[in-house]
């Protein structure tokens, strides 16, 4: 556009325009502003500064001096603290992305199996919600826990310090796995004691080395349990390890019926046997002796016939 018209006229016009606008600008902001406060026509002004050609005859106005000490303390914008601001749970998402970054960085490190990894007590969800101060869905927190568990499986010998430190942020205070109960021992008379419960029954077993005698509440096994099945159950811990003729058993059992009593004895006997021979634990676990059956009878509710059963509907 400018090139097509006679040059001299264009130059003259340009210089006049730029100087007038600048003069107006300088008079307006004579109080040496710390920085250019944007006005409506600011962009056009700066544009003109850039486009205006300099001539030796023109006086070049110096840009207003900037007081940088003030410039640093001058607020300009309000912005979110986290890039995940608009998600509604920025802190949680920042944690998640940070852990993912760490995992991506150290994914090639060798891992150990979950059982061998050091046991860590991660935050429970309500606690973590308190720490972060955001509503976090259960499913999302499970995803985070999976990440933590994966990072925790990195071989402890090779775990970098950065990983260890970031994992520590998610461990709940007060080490719950720190205070372990002292392992039970055989007393000075050679007795091992074990307790077990099943249904409404609870049993206490004293186990000594011997020749296979069993007394349940002062009665023999056959007297205590007329059903063969119950007898099998009660002595199953010894039977499945072929120790039936190697120990003598005294049992005190209370509450419940015969089945409950027999299976309470199973559990108690298994626990007592583990005091004598801890190495039997895998065998006993496979035999189903260690696993606690913690089901109890569900209470009856008002308005129900039994725990869940509703009265029959009658038309009127």
């Amino acid at each position: 556009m400018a090139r097509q018209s006679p040059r001299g006229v264009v130059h003259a016009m340009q210089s006049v325009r730029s100087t007038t606008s600048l003069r107006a600008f300088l008079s307006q902001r004579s109080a040496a502003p710390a920085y250019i406060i944007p006005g409506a026509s600011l962009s056009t002004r700066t544009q003109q500064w850039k486009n205006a050609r300099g001539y030796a005859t023109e006086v070049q106005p110096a840009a207003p001096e900037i007081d940088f000490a003030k410039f640093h303390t001058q607020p300009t914008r309000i912005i979110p603290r986290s890039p995940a601001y608009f998600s509604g749970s920025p802190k949680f998402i920042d944690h998640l992305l940070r852990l993912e970054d760490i995992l991506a960085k150290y994914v090639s490190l060798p891992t150990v199996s979950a059982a061998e990894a050091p046991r860590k007590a991660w935050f429970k969800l309500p606690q973590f919600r308190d720490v972060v101060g955001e509503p976090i869905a259960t499913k999302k927190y499970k995803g985070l826990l999976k990440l933590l568990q994966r990072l925790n499986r990195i071989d402890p010998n090779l775990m970098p310090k950065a990983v260890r430190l970031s994992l520590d942020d998610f461990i709940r205070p007060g080490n719950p796995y720190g205070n372990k109960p002292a392992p039970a021992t055989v007393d000075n008379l050679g007795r091992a004691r074990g307790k077990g419960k099943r249904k409404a029954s609870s049993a206490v077993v004293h186990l000594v080395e011997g020749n296979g005698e069993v007394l349940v509440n002062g009665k023999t096994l056959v007297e205590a349990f007329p059903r063969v099945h119950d007898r099998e159950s009660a002595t199953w811990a010894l039977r499945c390890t072929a120790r039936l003729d190697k120990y003598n058993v005294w049992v005190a059992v209370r509450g419940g019926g015969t089945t409950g009593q027999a299976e309470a004895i199973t559990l108690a006997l298994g626990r007592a046997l583990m005091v004598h021979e801890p190495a039997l634990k895998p065998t006993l676990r496979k035999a189903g002796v260690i696993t606690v059956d913690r089901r109890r009878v569900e209470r009856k509710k008002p308005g129900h016939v039994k725990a869940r059963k509703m009265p029959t509907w009658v038309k009127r």
Partner: protein
Amino acid sequence: MIVRHLCVRQSRQLFALNRQAYNLRRFSSVETPTSTPIETAAQTPTEEPVIPVPTGDALQFSTAAQSMRRAAYKVFKQKETRRSQFQRLGTDLSKPYNPEDIITNPPHPRDITLELLLAAQTHLGHSTSRWNPQNSRYIFGIRDNIHIISLDVTAAYLRRAARVVEEVAARGGLILFVGTRDGQKRSVVRAAELAGGYHIFERWIPGSLTNGEQILGHCEMKVVNALDEELPQFNGTLKEQAAALKPDLVVCLNPIENVVLLHECGLNSVPTIGIIDTDADPTRVTYPIPANDDSLRSAGVIAGVLGRAGQAGQSRRLREAKLGNVEYRTVLDRSDTLGTSIAEIVDEGKKRR
């Protein structure tokens, strides 16, 4: 539950059989057949490295655990170096395609070529039966019953969108990148990181703009100066008075699933950029980019380009700020209560000096 109960309870004969077996075992079980080896954690450090004799304080810290750790680390490093050496053997590939490049080193707006867009599958539309006739001007033709999007149009619209992102970033606007489909997370986060923007890769919470006080009220904000340095003296005022922020530009990688977001943006006059496939409604967004939104590569390339544009805008803004130029409305220019109270704090600070 004890498994054995199952068979025993089934029939009495089976149970009898069981007892017989037991009797036999009883007689033969004088020696206990169960082998219960005591499991000891025998961790043999493969090779104890020659540790230089430590002196003074260092002596205290070199525990057994540390030496074990060091040995394990050394073995691991050896393995790694061996692997990297072996990997170098064999054929030399020149310029192999690395899918990670879209994330790690996304293309700049100046790199937009039709080849790039074609390689990223941006031209593939939807089945012709699913089309939105409003997109007819972006469509090049039909092949295998699929609409093919015109790549030169895509390139032009992508360049325009990149320009928008750059200018918004250069004026200190908040740019929100949204991609809520599976697999878009990394490109969204990366684009936001490059552009100094914000990201959403999970569900957009409806009402975040129209009811921001309730939904984003607890999220933290900060006041910064022109050089993006935080000014902590305003934190108290912010907590008391600041309303939830709204983005100044929204980039949506899957507008079809985010109709609510786009509607809210329309209500709040927030401009939007969106990838418009042949089945999408182009009037939902302010600046459409006609392209394939179902391919992660296509969405990744577009997000990358826009991220790079934002990066250029941010660096331009910071460069200008170092020269003392602020080309946007600042907090002090606001006429609301927050603007005035922040201005008061600034004035008090001046008086103290």
